[in-house]
């Protein structure tokens, strides 16, 4: 469940990041085409929902999300490490906002969420791969 929530947040952050960047780069075109932006958001969220559904099926079948499983412990470690990374990245992005006030704050927030979620996913994937390789 934690992984699914992380993926949902990641998808939202990714969509927000894309739109924030697009708004900075193409301010007039986005405001003129709200339906295109909504369609893009639906595509991103639809793909994310499909991936959650598939992941949940796999987790149910393999019981990898069971509280006592090795995968759950690896995920907890990855979450703890990515939280520390998030604090560091958040501080750096805050500093960047202070130094460059022209950057939209929303862009920084979405970037932070996207970075933290990606960080967790990468850490978890590496830990799981190492665990499997060791055997």
């Amino acid at each position, binding site marked *: 469940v934690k992984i699914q929530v992380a993926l949902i947040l990641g998808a939202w952050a990714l969509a927000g990041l894309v739109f924030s960047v697009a708004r900075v780069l193409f301010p007039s075109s986005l405001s003129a085409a709200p339906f295109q932006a909504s369609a893009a958001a639906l595509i991103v969220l639809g793909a994310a929902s499909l991936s959650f559904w598939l992941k949940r099926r796999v987790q149910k079948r*393999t*019981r990898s999300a*069971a509280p*006592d499983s*090795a*995968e759950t412990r690896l995920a907890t470690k990855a979450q703890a490490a990515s939280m520390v990374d998030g604090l560091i990245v958040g501080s750096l992005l805050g500093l960047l906002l202070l130094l460059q006030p022209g950057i939209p704050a929303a862009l920084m927030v979405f970037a932070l969420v996207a970075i933290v979620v990606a960080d967790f996913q990468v850490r978890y994937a590496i830990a799981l791969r190492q665990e*499997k390789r060791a*055997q």
Partner: protein
Amino acid sequence: MKNAVLDLRRQDNLTQQDLADRVGVSRQTILSIERGRFDPSLPLAFRIAREFGRPIEAVFFPAD
């Protein structure tokens, strides 16, 4: 922590998947326990010991 899960599982002619199904965890978890790379939680250790019909101290014991 060391354990005798691999030996006991072989004695009982169980596959890793069989044991995983019985105690409610993934096969990867059983594999990691057998290789000594994962110390199970106390409830899981009790479930595994009960599955083999032995006291927990006969299945899991200190490394030294």
